[in-house]
């Protein structure tokens, strides 16, 4: 069947079961926008291409399916560079289709020309410049294969305008027709290493499971829970893994790292064994690497072999999918005599296992001694943590929470109770301010039946708020809670603690812009909250709106800081639990 390259592209996306494209048309991508009119694929017209990229990420985060964004050449393509970098850092599968000037014009500084495959080479898992319309179905199939398998990630396909207009003979490639001779994602771990890992687990006195985003990518939450319960080993969930293990579980220790809770941070520091599953020893988790978990042996499981030994040498390295390896690990533990109940078969290796009860008791002591704390005084300034807790208590347990980057993100991660996988969406590795609003829109598109709340900062909100116009126009009723402290709060916190309160370029103003009027101008409901008494009624009102977006402007205490905190570059042993510890008191 003869068709144009543009038609072949849209048909290829249909073959990949794409249900929605986030995009914005322009000259070079124009041919592709025509067949969209005849396609069952929904197109959501964004107001800025960065929004399209983050929407695709939010969609991918909550559905596990690749998000698709479409942009034109030149500035359209460069506007989506940040989402590509963001998705690369957090291993989010997105497929970006960019228009390109005609092949005959490439390299001539043509109107809206930008060599986007070169620009995005280091921030995509792979990218393609199509130079023959006949290649379109195969390249699209390859793009989805690469984006979604192994360690997921963003890909970009650059499509010149003359290729979109050219005729081609339609076909759809079988998997074996894909031309990827150098692409071999790891899958099953080496069984001997897995057995070795199982033996280490059965000899540890102070083990901790260090669960990372790879658990969610591999859909391994059930296996993780079984591993924790069978071995009785407590679990920390990193910023990218919140929700992969239920916070309500007795073995859940919550988030470790720079703003992790005392118990999670200290349990890792004192551990004699870290079982890293789909985590990558990020600097925000380890603090000073040389002082991180000094007595711990490490089992490191990652689908990306390049992560193994990158930061911390591991006694056992296993390249493989977190779900498959954890399943194999459970089998090996069984073979060594650790029954499903957690009981050891008499005479087996498991029966010689050290008692970890004293370790668990120590952890319980830390939990009692150092809980997360804040103080909402009656009639006092509104505390951001109080807003997060009230919102948590007034929304369904499977509410999807989306955060930007900064103080609000940390409070959201600390004070929400995540009990379900894929209910937490944030920009972890890249730290992209402005992520929340568009990512929440994408999340709501992917999971229209779930309540979606963005918890955002005032600085972040101003970066991408215009996408609420998209949400209003497309009837995507997500909600935004702005924790408005009138500052670039995290930067302000660092200037307070580490720059002797010399505040440089961090003040934003609580009233400029007027967030309520701005929300209303964009077709959303706008609500302002000045004190603690108004919080619950405002949330109740917002929860009742289901035909348009809602923005609540929570005027919060500008002086509140995120604690605990491990100062940048310091050892995790130097954790500051709160302002009472001297440093950071005002």
């Amino acid at each position, binding site marked *: 069947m003869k068709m144009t390259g543009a038609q072949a592209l849209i048909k290829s996306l249909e073959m990949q079961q794409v249900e929605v494209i986030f995009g914005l048309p322009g000259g070079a991508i124009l041919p592709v926008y025509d067949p969209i009119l005849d396609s069952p694929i929904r197109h959501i017209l964004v107001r800025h291409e960065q929004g399209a990229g983050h929407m695709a990420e939010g969609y991918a985060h909550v559905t596990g399916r690749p998000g698709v964004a479409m942009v034109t050449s030149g500035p359209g393509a460069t506007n989506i560079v940040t989402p590509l970098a963001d998705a690369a850092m957090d291993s989010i599968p997105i497929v970006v289709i960019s228009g390109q000037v005609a092949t005959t014009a490439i390299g001539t500084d043509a109107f809206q020309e930008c060599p986007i*495959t*070169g620009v995005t*080479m*280091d921030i995509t*898992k*792979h990218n393609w*410049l199509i130079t023959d319309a006949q290649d379109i179905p195969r390249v699209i199939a390859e793009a989805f294969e*690469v984006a979604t398998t192994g360690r997921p990630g963003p890909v970009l396909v650059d499509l010149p305008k003359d290729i979109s207009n050219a005729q081609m003979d339609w076909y759809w490639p079988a998997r074996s027709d894909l031309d*990827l*001779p*150098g*692409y071999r994602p790891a899958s099953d771990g080496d069984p001997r290493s897995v057995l070795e890992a199982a033996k280490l687990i059965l000899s540890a006195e102070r083990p901790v499971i260090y669960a990372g985003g790879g658990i969610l990518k591999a859909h391994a939450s059930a296996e993780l829970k079984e591993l924790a319960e069978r071995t009785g080993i407590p679990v920390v969930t990193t910023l990218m893994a919140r929700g992969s293990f239920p916070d309500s579980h007795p073995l859940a220790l919550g988030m470790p790292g720079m703003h992790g809770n005392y118990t999670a941070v200290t349990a890792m520091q004192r551990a004699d064994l870290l079982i890293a599953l789909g985590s990558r020893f990020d600097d925000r988790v380890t603090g000073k690497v040389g002082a991180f978990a000094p007595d711990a042996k490490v089992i490191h499981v990652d689908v*990306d*072999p*390049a992560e*193994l*030994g*990158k930061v911390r040498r591991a006694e056992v390295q296993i390249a493989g999918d977190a779900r498959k390896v954890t399943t194999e690990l459970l089998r090996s533990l069984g073979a060594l005599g650790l029954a499903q109940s957690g009981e050891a078969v008499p005479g087996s290796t498991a029966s010689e296992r050290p008692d970890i009860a004293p370790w668990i008791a120590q952890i319980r002591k830390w939990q009692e001694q150092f809980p997360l704390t804040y103080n909402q005084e009656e009639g006092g300034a509104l505390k951001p943590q109080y807003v997060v807790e009230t919102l948590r208590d007034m929304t369904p347990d499977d509410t999807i929470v989306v955060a930007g980057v900064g103080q609000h993100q940390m409070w959201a991660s600390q004070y929400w109770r995540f009990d379900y996988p894929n209910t937490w969406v944030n920009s972890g590795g890249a730290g992209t301010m402005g992520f929340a609003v568009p990512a929440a829109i994408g999340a709501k598109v992917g999971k229209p039946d779930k309540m979606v709340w963005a918890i955002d900062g005032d600085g972040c909100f101003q970066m991408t708020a215009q996408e609420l116009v998209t949400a209003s126009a497309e009837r995507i009723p997500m909600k935004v809670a702005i924790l408005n402290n009138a500052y670039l709060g995290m930067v302000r916190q660092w200037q307070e603690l580490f720059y002797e309160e010399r505040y440089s370029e961090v003040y934003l103003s609580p009233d400029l812009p007027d967030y309520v009027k701005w929300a209303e101008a964009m077709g959303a409901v706008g609500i302002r909250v000045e004190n603690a008494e108004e919080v619950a009624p405002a949330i109740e009102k917002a929860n009742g709106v289901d035909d348009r977006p809602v923005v609540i402007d929570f005027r919060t205490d500008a002086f509140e800081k995120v604690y605990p905190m491990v100062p940048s570059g310091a050892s995790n042993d130097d954790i500051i639990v709160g302002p009472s510890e001297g440093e950071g008191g005002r």
Partner: protein
Amino acid sequence: MKAPGRHHIVSALVENKAGVLARVAGLFSRRGFNIFSLAVAPTDDERFSRITIVVDVESAPLEQIVRQLDKLVNVVEIAELAPEEATEREMLLVTVQATPAERGNVIQLVGVFEGTIVDVGLDSMTVMLAGPPSKIDDFEMLIRPFGITELQRTGRVALPKLARRAARLRALPSDESDEAG
């Protein structure tokens, strides 16, 4: 032009496609590591090229780079070759001043190194020499006093040395004599 002391050879079999060299080189440049020499050409299978890279990097970051190179979709196979386990070869073209009075001395030196004179002018000549990099280094040092007009080396190519099968070696009169390189 002498290779640094602890140089490493990375040999990658890659897809013969546009942009592949940039992807490979990018993994070095983004860390600020300089590529000492680079040779790339198609293999016997025209779908693939072999890239031979010589770098001066500590072992630990190089291991990380090699793992990341292996992740590139276009990289089919990759190996780090220890210099003592590799057969390395390089070629040099040099145009050297050779007035009629000096011509004989130049020809003599080229003869000692088993090089080839590939072009002769009125008062200069162009010489080609192929061999192990150390031999090229030596030749370059000795030819320099004559006055080098232009010099170009290809960068080294390398393949792993072959494993010697013990049984076959015992059958040979002298198993030490065939030291490659």
